[in-house]
């Protein structure tokens, strides 16, 4: 009996813990026009060309980052599971590093290594800086991407599936594209989704590398306006929920999903 009460209390507490700030933000974002609720703040935000520019920049960066992350993470995680199980703690440690190295350190390192007088002067051009930023983002999202893909791979028996496919005559590429990838698609998507959320909200790297991303824009708005940032936050939140919904949909439509999840 007492257990039940406690657990429900915990649940309610958890919901309030996250729900209240969100509700507060939502309510505030509607109060731009004095005395009545209105969508004025949203209209102001959406009509701001700065918003459109920075937001689409960040979305594009996010997509590239996801592609890079998938290319790096999926084969690595696959081989670690297949052949180098002993390396797993080591690889896991590496993938956790971005959580404990502040982004500022990574950026300093990049600027140091790739400045205009270095052997690879990436910071010299906008495109080069974009690439650098993409690598930074990929680093930031690595823990999530790796964790997601690794969990997905663990759910299937990578080694036996690979051997089964090999004994049926499949080569490496076939195994990867027809057997492994389809079975970790949901995992990859959820990693991609987290990457997306991180890139959209990231501030430090974009600011230090001086790129027109959504994070710094959010920060500037937050410092200078009252209602618009609240509206922006709600919009950002809505986008991430939409992504989650999409993943749910994909999972539903995958007929073999009961195993793959």
């Amino acid at each position: 009996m007492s257990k039940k009460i406690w657990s429900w209390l915990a649940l309610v507490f958890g919901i309030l813990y996250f729900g209240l700030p969100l509700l507060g933000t939502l309510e505030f974002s509607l109060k731009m026009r004095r005395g009545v609720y209105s969508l004025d703040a949203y209209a102001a935000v959406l009509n701001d060309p700065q918003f459109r520019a920075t937001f689409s920049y960040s979305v594009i960066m996010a997509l590239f980052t996801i592609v890079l992350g998938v290319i790096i993470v999926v084969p690595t995680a696959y081989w670690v599971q297949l052949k180098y199980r002993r390396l797993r703690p080591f690889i896991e440690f590496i993938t956790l590093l971005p959580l404990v190295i502040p982004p500022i350190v990574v950026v300093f390192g990049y600027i140091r290594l790739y400045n205009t007088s270095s052997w690879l002067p990436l910071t010299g051009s906008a495109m080069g800086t974009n690439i650098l930023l993409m690598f930074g983002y990929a680093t930031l999202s690595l823990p999530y991407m790796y964790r997601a893909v690794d969990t997905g791979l663990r759910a299937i028996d990578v080694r036996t599936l690979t051997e089964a496919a090999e004994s049926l005559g499949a080569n490496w590429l076939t195994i990867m594209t027809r057997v492994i990838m389809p079975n970790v698609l949901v995992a990859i998507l959820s990693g991609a989704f987290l990457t997306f959320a991180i890139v959209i909200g990231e501030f430090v790297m974009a600011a230090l590398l001086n790129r027109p991303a959504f994070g710094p824009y959010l920060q500037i708005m937050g410092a200078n306006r009252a209602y618009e940032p609240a509206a922006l936050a709600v919009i950002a939140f809505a986008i991430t929920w939409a992504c989650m919904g999409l993943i749910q949909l994909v999972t539903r439509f995958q007929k073999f999903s009961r195993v793959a999840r």
Partner: protein
Amino acid sequence: MAFLDLSNLQKFYGTNHVVKDFSIGIEKGEFISFLGPSGCGKTTTLRMVAGFEVPDQGAISIDGQDVVRLKPNQRNIGMVFQAYALFPNMTVAQNVGFGLKIAGKPKDQIAERVTEMLALVGLKDFGARYPFQLSGGQQQRVALARALAPSPQVLLLDEPLSALDAKIRVSLREEIRNIQRDLGITTIYVTHDQEEALSMSDRIVVMHDGIAEQIGEPFEIYNKPASRFVAEFVGTLNLIDATVEDSSTGRVKVAGQHLELGRSLEAVNGATVSLALRPETVRLGRIADGDQTLTGLVEEVSFLGSVVRIKVALGGNHIVLDTFNRTISKPPSIGDQIEVSFPSESVMI
């Protein structure tokens, strides 16, 4: 040279000598079991045949062709795993057709072969299902169909039944054996279950510690074990201490009672030897005239269903004997004095 020939295979994992000098020639269409406890090297040997492990020494040839250098996907071998290993993202039909698709067969040929294979394993109407919608036994049948679909030269099965329930295990092993016989496909079957090996195989390889302890037909393995290990691993064994009274005629003494084994023994008079007897060769009461008899006290009676297992105390020794359950008569009770008998030929020393 045999169809599938393994000669002098050796394999190390680090300093661990897992397979030590393993050789066997397997004829076309034969069903061979590798039987042994875990860690005996049976799975490693199978995986060397499949190409998943490379032998440190020795040769493997199929139909006269040396395959040691070939990759698994070049060996034309069908493999069935303990964990089924069906591709979860494909339907049953896609799973079965996978090997044919890889081989670049035209669509209608694949469809035809898939139908044929699914009919063979009794899953005609299951082509459109996904693996997670099947029971374990059905999944393993699909795995078998998938392995057989590209008409491999050799079929390898790695403890395919050990993840299944007892009843399904029994029915599926009969089914596998029948399919293998019908197709005449050369097969290696790895198992730690003696009953599986005995009931399915043309020949059994009993493995122990990286070595083939005995290779032979099931009846031979069970009744003429080449070593104490084989005798104990395959089936149950009664071990009785006996004192040799006359080694030339084979007279021994067990708990004050005499036995005539009817053959000369290697041990000297007065020495203690241990007699080995299968529980099922010992009978309750005195039946045939030539049989040896011993008298003892019933110590334990286990009713196992079709078989009743009775433990009889003979001085410091115990004999366990099996007798079939008879609907009409109850088994003896604990403490009864009873006579047990066995033919002297069935005693192993």
